[in-house]
């Protein structure tokens, strides 16, 4: 019983983290129809910058509560710098080319950013656990669990609700829906489509960096983390359906719980439980749970 609780808690934590990362990836894909293979590297950049800021800040010995704000700051800075840079500088030039060219382009950017991280932060692991340990621990049904994962879950929920509200309840949401449905018609309606693209990509970048920054206090950081994140969030959004925020939430929950169950019950399976689920889902529902079936044009 206690074990089940731990599995559920771990699963929830993992799912929250997965949602934060994959929401950005799926949002970008939904609007731009480009799968950003550099997403994991934006995550790594956010995580490294967040960890550095927190470590510097902790060294000054000031009020620890402000460190959480620094994590958000790191995410926004990374997103605002790299989002427009990648979209305006590179992606914009290949929208008219084949889909595989766009994938290759983001792949090459991911290779470059991978080394940027190594050049700036070196290859030694970095660990900034202050925001994690500051919150302390809680006893829950006989289980001793840290508070920080709950904060992470709350933030993930908040972001999910915020995204949902923006998409369904605001003018911006309508503009997005219009751009997604038909780019040309949106242009004739007077919507500045290139700008929408830039902001949508930047929003995805901020979310990636935020996912990184918020998990920096939980795991130590080492090079290569970006690739791992990318591959996992791919699986999540493929299960949920590419382009669907709700799908990302469901996918994150499924993958999170499955992964944590695998860790406790079948430890030798944990690494590929995720991909097994993804392959199964895609077999029976190729477009994922909430994905739309694309109309094939002649």
């Amino acid at each position: 019983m206690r074990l089940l609780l731990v599995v559920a808690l771990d699963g929830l934590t993992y799912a929250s983290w997965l949602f934060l990362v994959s929401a950005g990836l799926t949002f970008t894909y939904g609007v731009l129809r480009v799968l950003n293979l550099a997403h994991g590297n934006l995550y790594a950049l956010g995580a490294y910058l967040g960890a550095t800021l927190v470590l510097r800040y902790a060294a000054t010995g000031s009020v620890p509560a402000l460190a959480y704000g620094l994590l958000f700051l790191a995410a926004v800075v990374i997103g605002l710098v790299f989002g427009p840079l990648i979209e305006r500088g590179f992606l914009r030039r290949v929208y008219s080319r084949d889909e595989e060219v766009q994938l290759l382009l983001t792949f090459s950017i991911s290779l470059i950013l991978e080394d940027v991280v190594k050049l700036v932060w070196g290859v030694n692991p970095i660990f900034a656990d202050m925001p994690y340990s500051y919150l302390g621990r809680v006893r829950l049904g006989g289980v001793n669990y840290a508070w920080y994962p709950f904060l992470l879950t709350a933030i993930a929920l908040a972001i999910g609700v915020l995204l949902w509200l923006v998409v369904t309840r605001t003018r911006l949401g309508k503009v997005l829906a219009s751009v997604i449905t038909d780019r040309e018609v949106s242009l004739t309606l007077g919507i500045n489509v290139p700008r929408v693209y830039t902001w949508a990509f930047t929003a995805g970048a901020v979310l990636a960096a935020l996912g990184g920054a918020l998990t920096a206090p939980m795991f130590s950081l080492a090079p290569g983390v970006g690739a791992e994140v990318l591959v996992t969030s791919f699986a999540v959004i493929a299960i949920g359906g590419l382009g669907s925020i709700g799908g990302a939430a469901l996918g994150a929950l499924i993958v999170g719980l499955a992964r944590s169950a695998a860790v406790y019950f079948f430890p030798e399976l944990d690494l590929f439980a995720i991909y097994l689920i993804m392959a199964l889902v895609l077999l029976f529902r190729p477009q994922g749970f909430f994905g739309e079936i694309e109309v094939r044009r002649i």
Partner: protein
Amino acid sequence: MLARARTAIYVALGALVLLVGVPLLVSGWIVFLLTVAGAKALAVLGVVLLLRGKLLTFGHALYYAVGAYAAGMAVKYLAVREALVLLTLSLLAGVAMSAFLGLLVARYRAVYFALLNLAFSMVLYGILLKFYSVTGGTDGLGIAEPTLAGVRLSGSLLRLAMYELTVVLTTLLVYFTYRFFASPTGYTLRAIRDNEVRVEYMGVSVWRAVYVSYVIAGGLAAVAGGLIALSVGHITPDLAFWSQSGEFVFVAVLGGTGSMLAPAVGSVLFEFVRNYAFELSPYTWQMTLGIVLLLIIFFLPGGVWSLTTLAWRRAGR
């Protein structure tokens, strides 16, 4: 036109003789490098074949690893030592695996195709890593020196034999792929690139063309894996890792998809540049790759191979 085709054949034969004679001219280390490049070119050839049908895979290292481990496990558990038998086993394992997974994968296109392949390759990576009692885990498997046509190989003789074997096999398989691409199924693949729905309307099975190409691509990568296993003498799960698949895609784009010879050119170029660039600056190696890839995407969409056609055209005038 005919004269030009004849010149092309002479050039190709000359190149082949030169390739076979290379070990007489250069040091053993370069021979080894060329062996690796030649073997990997086969896996890249598979990626190029699929790219011609507009299918991008980020998991082709799956078949590369299947081929390598098929050979490696046959050496370890079945005590097979004959290189030709081992390579046949690699090929069979790769074809069997791609024939099975192809049933599932050939239904998908674009991002999903790339994704599913990636997922399967990561599943294999996980299996190779976790079942260390059989696969050796992260330590991998050491492979005892093979025999070729009954002759025991070791040291420089092994290096030389593997080089010649790689040259012969790669040439044969490149020719085979070239013929496949000129076959009706190959033409269907070209048509799929332009417009898949129209191909279906003509009553041609798109699925079949994609499936057959996928199986061939898998077989090519498996032979590459077998050759690498025998030449290097050691295999690790990293052979199945996504970055290996990424490397194949990179080399495919570097060489270009314009010709079946392009993967070999791209592959040799890549191995040499990697060796020197990696020694110069291990930290900016991937960045170099990324920048080169960006440059190719923007300024040389046909890859390095398109330079030769440019030169060819100029010479013809």
